[in-house]
């Protein structure tokens, strides 16, 4: 009887061990969903699983607007989250809280972190928000910059020459905007320019660019706080932006709220928040590509040579990952398809793959993205750095409040600047 019991126990033990051993490792990655990009991401996940048959990869595709809060909640709850994607406006808070694992060169088959960093364009990891306190955490997944966009069909209609008349300065921008503005029976039917009038972040990014051009360092908390002691410069930047609505009237917010859709449907002749990916958006709105052109952000005549806001996404391995090295191997695979993404307008700053193969093909990029060489690449080199702060969202709200007070409440720019100064100084006390 005892022998029988012992035998059964042994069999059960072997069965359990075998089952446990045969169980696959599960890797859960949180990403955002985008119709054009999802199949490419799925291809990477499938390729990783084919190479690692004992690993099951689950990629959760989340609406971009909800992604960061879902990730925050899962991390707070200690749920299974091995890796996730954040943009450079979001990452500081998470990095400061210590939720990410520093880059592990073993995950890329490299000996040193420097070898990993060198696989991306210089400074890419920094611009994409993947560096904290001098330590590298992020695997760059996208690096883009905002450029200005103009409807050249409307330019020709207004008697302008697209080759020579695109705005170079903010004064030109106003002049061109006035010519492109269309009013019928006292009602604006086409804006010369518009930005998103409901979501503050886009207005913040354009305003941030202007502040950078005026010499204020809005890329870091220290610089932002220091800039609050320069009310004249702040006022100049705020006035330049709000005068589009208040004084020059090239932007009527009542016409439409979404600039990207507005540009695609002809409700605005210019907008300032589109990157290389906007070609795909324009196609969605059935706007003929021959009707639109990107051009460098206007500059102040006496300002710095700085382009539109630069932003990017990085992929991170979570501190809850059971096997961080495996996590980095997966992220390496996810970020190894720059030539697939560039065909759909999505720019990844990868120069070399881990196996030594070349990364982004410059010729393919130029062929896939109209004006890639002449506009996007040049502007990317002079991009305005997005504020890296753990209180970035609050700053964005405060700047949007400052803009809203002027354009919606009729407040004076100087008064709005005073309130902005008080808000920012109070925030960082």
């Amino acid at each position, binding site marked *: 009887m005892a022998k029988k019991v012992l035998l059964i126990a042994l069999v059960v033990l072997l069965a359990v061990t075998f089952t446990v051993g045969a169980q696959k490792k599960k890797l859960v990655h949180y990403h955002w969903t985008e119709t054009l990009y999802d199949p490419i991401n799925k291809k990477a996940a499938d390729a990783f699983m084919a190479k690692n048959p004992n690993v099951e990869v689950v990629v959760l595709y989340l609406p971009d607007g909800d992604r960061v809060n879902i990730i925050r909640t899962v991390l707070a709850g200690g749920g299974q989250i091995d890796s996730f994607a954040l943009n450079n406006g979001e990452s500081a808070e998470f990095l400061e809280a210590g939720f990410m694992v520093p880059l592990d060169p073993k995950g890329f088959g490299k000996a040193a972190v420097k070898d990993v960093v060198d696989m991306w364009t210089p400074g890419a990891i920094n611009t994409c928000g993947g560096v904290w306190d001098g330590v590298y955490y992020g695997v760059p997944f996208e690096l883009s910059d905002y450029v200005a966009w103009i409807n050249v069909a409307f330019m020709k209609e207004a008697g302008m020459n697209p080759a020579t008349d695109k705005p170079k300065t903010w004064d030109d921008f106003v002049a061109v905007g006035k010519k492109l503005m269309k009013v019928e029976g006292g009602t604006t039917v086409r804006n010369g320019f518009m930005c998103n009038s409901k979501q503050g972040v886009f207005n913040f990014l354009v305003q941030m660019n202007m502040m950078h051009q005026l010499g204020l360092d809005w890329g870091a908390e220290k610089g932002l706080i220091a800039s609050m002691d320069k009310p004249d410069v702040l006022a100049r930047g705020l006035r330049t932006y709000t005068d589009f609505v208040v004084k020059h009237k090239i932007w009527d917010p009542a016409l439409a709220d979404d600039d990207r859709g507005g540009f695609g449907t002809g409700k605005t002749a210019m907008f300032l928040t589109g990157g290389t990916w906007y070609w795909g958006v324009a196609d969605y709105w059935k706007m003929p590509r021959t009707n639109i052109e990107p051009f460098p952000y206007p500059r102040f005549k006496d300002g710095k040579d700085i382009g539109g806001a630069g932003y990017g996404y990085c992929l991170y391995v979570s501190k809850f990952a059971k096997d961080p090295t495996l996590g980095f191997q997966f992220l390496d695979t996810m970020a190894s398809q720059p030539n697939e993404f560039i065909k759909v307008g999505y720019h990844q700053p990868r120069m070399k793959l881990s196996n030594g193969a070349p990364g982004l093909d410059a010729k393919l990029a130029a062929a896939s993205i109209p004006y890639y060489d002449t506009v996007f690449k040049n502007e990317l080199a002079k991009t305005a750095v997005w504020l890296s702060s753990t209180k970035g969202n609050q700053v964005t709200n405060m700047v949007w*409040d400052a803009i809203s007070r002027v354009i919606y409440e009729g407040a004076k720019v100087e008064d709005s600047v005073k309130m902005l100064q008080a808000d920012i100084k109070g925030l960082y006390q």
Partner: protein
Amino acid sequence: MRKASYSVTRLQNHGYVFILPTLLFFSLFLIYPMISAFRFSFFEWNLLKPKVFVGFKNFINMVHDSRVINSYVRTLHFSGISVAVINILAFVFAIMFSSRLLGWKNFWQSLIFLPVVLSVVAVGVVWEFMYQSTGLIPVILRKLIGTSPVWLTNTKAAPYAMIIVYVWKSVGYYMVIYIAGLLDVPVSFYEAARIDGAGFWGQLWYITIPSLKNTIALAVVSCVIFTYGQFSIQYVITKGGPSRSTEIMAILIYRQAFELSKFGYSAAISVLFFLTMLVFSLIQLRLFRSGTVGA
């Protein structure tokens, strides 16, 4: 006194078993989150760092926060006007549909009730387009009166734009409540009034309104509670803008939590919100319990 028999006691215990699933559901998804929210209101927490106990700091900050005060005032403004307009309109419609002079009653009632069943997000999206400067409403107003307010980008007009949408969406629901109330008024009262020479206004003032006191109380208090908790229309159409002129409490609570990651502060504001709703709910309970409602 005889003890209740074993079978009666067992039957009473079975009652608890039947309500147990609902009780569990409410405990998990309503009671526990409410208690958690009260608890979080005494902390500073962004979900990423450990909670920091701050005592009443969130509540003290709230009192001095112009955003909270603005939001509270906006909510009272939105609720006050919406409740009044909805109930007056619903009452008028109910009176109209109780009249024998009006034809096609079912059609008109259905038309007025239809917005109630529509998706609030779809309603918000469509009304947003209608309010834009080249949208249906300004175009019609300009044709009729030569001018139109700038609905969604004027801080004075935007709150009323939200009220119009909300009233349009909700009036059908309260119309049904008033119709049900009117059906309960005995016809003999009106006959007697007519015999005594009372006209329409006399009947309305001395019979209809007093008879509908309970229904009016129910409708008004329910309307206040639902309106105060409104979120979707403002969120879809204006996101609380322009310049926070439509940032009612529910939106402020949402933004503090999910945009600014200030979950403790958001919880504190939600406690204020809860206390306000509690006052209205207690009024409603008192009205029901005192026998003045439903009698």
